[in-house]
C-alpha cells in the first residue's frame, strides 16, 4: 500500500453527546440509565402513577391467532420478559423488567373487537369518537392492532387514524401486523437465540417508551440547557397527490417548536401550494411567513428569552427558493429576534468512513459525533449515528450490527451574514437524543423537531382537518 497516494484529513474530536437526567440519576445512554442502572424515569404523570393506566386494546374480529400473540406480548410488557438466567445475568440493555418495575405505573388493559375491512377505518374512528365523548375517560390510551404489513402511504389508514386521534384528543398507539408477527417469533425463540432475545427486548423497551410518553411521562431530559438558543423550529413540507396546476400541487407545511432544553412546546400547520420544477421547491411565501411568524411569537413568550443574543434556529429538510428562505428569516426578525439561522438537514450525507484495521464490522464505523466541515462555515457532515458506548466500560464502543452509520448533511441556508458553527452541529446532535419514542437513540439520525414536524405534516396531509387548531398534546403523534 503506497501511503503517499492518499490525501489525509485530520478531523477534530467527535462532538460530545448530551448527559441525560433521569428521576434519580444521570447517564449518557437512556437504556443503560433505565435498564442497567435502574434509574426511574424523569417524570411520571402523578395522576397516572396514583391510579394506574388503563389501555383499550382494539383488535380486528376473526383474528384469534393474532390476538393471542398480542396478549402474550402485553403480558410480557406488564410482567417483564421471561428470560433464561444466563441472559438475565449478562445481556444488559435488552432485559425488560416489566412496566411497573421500570416506570412505576400499574398498567391494565381490556380488549375489544372492531370490524376491519381493507382501508376502511370507520369502525375505528367510531370507537375513538365514543371514547372522546366520555368524561371522565374510561381509558388513558387506545392501542390499535392494524393488520397491515407496512405503514400506509399518505391518506392511508395509519395516518388517518392518527389524524382522528389528534382531532379527538385521544392518545393512540398503533401496532402493525408485520411487527406483531416478527416480534411474536422473536418471543418464541428468545431463550435459545441471543439475537431474537435482543430484538424482542429492544422492541419491549421502545413499545413501553411510546406508551409511557403518551401517558404524559418524560423518560429523560437534557442535564444542561443548550446555550445561546431561544428556540428551535422544525419545518417540514409535504406534497399531497392532489394536482392544482401543471407544476403545482397542494401541500402541507407543519412546524414544531422546541425550547433550549429540547422540550416540545407546540406545533402548527397550514395548507400551501407547492410548485416543484427542477430540484427546488417553491412555496407561497405569505403562508410560510404567517406560519413561521406565529411560532416565533410563541418563542418570544418563553421565559428568560434574550432576543438580542439568543438564536432562533429554523431546521428544514427541503431545498427552497431564495425568496422562501428569506421569508422565513424575516418572519423571525419581524417578531424582534436579532439572531436567526436557517439550517438545512438532509438525512443522507455522502461521506462514508470505515476503519480497515478492524475485523468486526461493528468496530469499523466512526464514533458517533464525528463531523467534517466540507465547506468552512457553510456545509458539514455529521455522524449522528456511529460507534457508541452501548455497554458499560470496559466494553469497547461499537455500532449496531448490520446498521449503516452514515452522516447527515447540514448546510446553512441563510442569512448571509451568519456562519455554520460547531455549536450548530452540537444542537442537532443533542436534538436527536430527545426523540421520545425510542431508547435506541444512537440509531436516530434526525433531530426531533424535524422528525416530528415531518410526521405531523404526513398526518395532517392524510385527513382534512379543516382550519381548526390542532389540540396541543405534546406526545400525541
Amino acid at each position, binding site marked *: 500500500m503506497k501511503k503517499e497516494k*492518499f*490525501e*489525509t484529513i485530520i478531523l477534530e474530536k467527535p462532538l460530545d453527546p448530551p448527559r441525560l437526567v433521569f428521576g434519580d440519576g444521570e447517564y449518557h445512554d437512556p437504556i443503560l440509565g433505565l435498564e442497567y442502572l435502574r434509574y426511574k424515569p424523569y417524570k411520571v404523570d402523578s395522576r397516572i402513577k396514583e391510579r394506574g393506566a388503563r389501555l383499550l386494546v382494539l383488535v380486528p374480529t376473526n383474528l384469534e391467532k393474532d390476538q393471542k400473540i398480542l396478549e402474550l406480548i402485553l403480558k410480557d410488557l406488564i410482567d417483564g420478559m421471561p428470560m433464561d438466567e444466563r441472559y438475565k445475568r449478562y445481556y444488559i440493555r435488552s432485559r425488560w423488567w416489566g412496566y411497573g418495575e421500570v416506570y412505576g405505573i400499574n398498567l391494565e388493559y381490556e380488549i375489544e373487537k372492531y370490524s376491519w375491512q381493507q382501508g376502511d377505518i370507520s369502525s375505528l374512528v367510531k370507537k375513538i369518537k365514543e371514547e372522546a365523548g366520555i368524561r371522565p375517560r374510561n381509558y388513558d390510551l387506545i392501542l390499535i392492532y392494524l393488520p397491515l404489513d*407496512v405503514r400506509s402511504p399518505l391518506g392511508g389508514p395509519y395516518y388517518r387514524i392518527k389524524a382522528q386521534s389528534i382531532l379527538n384528543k385521544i392518545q393512540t398507539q398503533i401496532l402493525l401486523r408485520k411487527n406483531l408477527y416478527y416480534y411474536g417469533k422473536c418471543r418464541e425463540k428468545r431463550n435459545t437465540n441471543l439475537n431474537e432475545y435482543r430484538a424482542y427486548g429492544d422492541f419491549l423497551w421502545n413499545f413501553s417508551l411510546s406508551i409511557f410518553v403518551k401517558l404524559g411521562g418524560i423518560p429523560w431530559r437534557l442535564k444542561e440547557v443548550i446555550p445561546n438558543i431561544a428556540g428551535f423550529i422544525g419545518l417540514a413540507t409535504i406534497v399531497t397527490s392532489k394536482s392544482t396546476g401543471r407544476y403545482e400541487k397542494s401541500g402541507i407545511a407543519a412546524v414544531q417548536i422546541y425550547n433550549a432544553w429540547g422540550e416540545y412546546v407546540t406545533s402548527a400547520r397550514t395548507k400551501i401550494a407547492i410548485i416543484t420544477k427542477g430540484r427546488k421547491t417553491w412555496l407561497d411565501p405569505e403562508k410560510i411567513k404567517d406560519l413561521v411568524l406565529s411560532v416565533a411569537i410563541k418563542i418570544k413568550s418563553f421565559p428568560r428569552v434574550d432576543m438580542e443574543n439568543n438564536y432562533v434556529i429554523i431546521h428544514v429538510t427541503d431545498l427552497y427558493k431564495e425568496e422562501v428562505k428569506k421569508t422565513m428569516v424575516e418572519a423571525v426578525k419581524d417578531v424582534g429576534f436579532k439572531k436567526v439561522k436557517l439550517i438545512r438537514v438532509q438525512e443522507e450525507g455522502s461521506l462514508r468512513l470505515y476503519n480497515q484495521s478492524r475485523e468486526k464490522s461493528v468496530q469499523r464505523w466512526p*464514533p458517533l459525533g464525528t463531523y467534517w466541515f*466540507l465547506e468552512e462555515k457553510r456545509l458539514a457532515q455529521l455522524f449522528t449515528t456511529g460507534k457508541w458506548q452501548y455497554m458499560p466500560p470496559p466494553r469497547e464502543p461499537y455500532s449496531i450490527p448490520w446498521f449503516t452509520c452514515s452522516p447527515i448533511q447540514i448546510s446553512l441556508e441563510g442569512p448571509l451574514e451568519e456562519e455554520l458553527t460547531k455549536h450548530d452541529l452540537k444542537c442537532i446532535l443533542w436534538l436527536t437524543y430527545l426523540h421520545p419514542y425510542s431508547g435506541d437513540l444512537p440509531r436516530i439520525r434526525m433531530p426531533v423537531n424535524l422528525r416530528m414536524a415531518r410526521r405531523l405534516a404526513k398526518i395532517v396531509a392524510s385527513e382534512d382537518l379543516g382550519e381548526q387548531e390542532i389540540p396541543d398534546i405534546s406526545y400525541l403523534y
Partner: protein
Amino acid sequence: MGKIKESLLPWLGISKEELVTYKEYASNAYLSYLPDFENFECLMADLTNEYEANRMLKRLRSSGKEEALPAVIDSRKIYFVDELLTEHLNCIHKNSVSTIKLSNTTQREIRIVGRLVYGIMDYSLQKDYKTSYILSQKEYMKRVVFKDDSDLFVKVVQDQDRKAQYVARRGLRVKVHAGIFPGKILVFFTPEGSHEIKVFDYSGWINKPVKVKSIKYKQELGLSDNLLVKSIREDGKVVVYDQTNNKEYLFDSNQIYIPASSRILAEVGVFDELLRFTSFQDMGEDIFLEKALNDIFGKGEEISLKYKNRVNIKLNKIMFKISEDRG
C-alpha cells in the same frame, strides 16, 4: 501507559495536541490532483439559439454521441471538451469556438466545471469501467453506477404467476463537489440501492397502482398520482383508471410501470428479500463499498477518469484521522 497529568505537560516539553492519538479511517471520498481546476482548459462557443442547443444536446446524448456528454450550456454559450461536437450542433457560431480556462473559484464557473466533470465521468464510467447507471424515474440527474452482469450489484427474483421480474440493484452514487477546494474537485461514491418491477404482461396486475413513465406526458394529461391498472385490451393496450379524476386512459405497456414501492413488493412477498440485498444486510455497507470500488476501479487508491485523450482527471482516495478521545 497510564494517563499523564495535564499540568505536567509543560515540564515534559510536550503540547496537549501531541498526546492525541488518532485512528485511521478509509473513506469513499476522492480528491483530484490533476488537472488544476483553477485553470481547467475547455472549449467555448457562442450559441445562436440556446433553447435549440439544449434540445439538440439532449437528442445527441440519447442517440449515443459521446462528444455530447461533457458539454454545458450556460448564458447563450456552450462549454465542451471535444471539438467533434461542433459538427453536430448547427446553432453554434462556428468562428466563435475558442479555448478558455475555467476556475472553480467563482460561483458561475464552479457550476460549469461540475457539470463538465459529470459529463466526463459519464463517458469514462461507461466506456473505460464498463458500468451502467441505475436510472431513477424521480431523480433525473441521479447517477448510481453498477455492473449489470455481476451478482455483487444485481439480484433478480422471477414471478411466473404474475409474469414479472423483481430486480434489486445496488451500486455507487456519484456526487461531485466542484467548488469546495480551489483547484480540486471532490468526488463521493456512496452505496445506494433501488428496486424495480419489470412486468411482461399486465394481466397479472389488475387493480394495482401504476405510473406513467414520462413526467411531461403525465403533466400534459393532467393525471393524478392515483392510477390503477383497470384492464387489458385485446390489442395489448392497458386501460389505466385515474381514481382522483375518475377518468380512464389507454397506454402502451412500455409507457407505464408498476412502482416498486415497499407496499407492492410486500404484497407480492419479495420485499424483505430485496431489501436485505439493497440495504447491504448480506455483507454490510462498508464491505460492499470496498468490494464495489475494487470491482469497478480495480485495487488501489487512485482513480483516473478520462475523456478520450483530451482530459484525464486523476483522484486520490482521502484517508481520515480521527481522535476517538472525547473532550
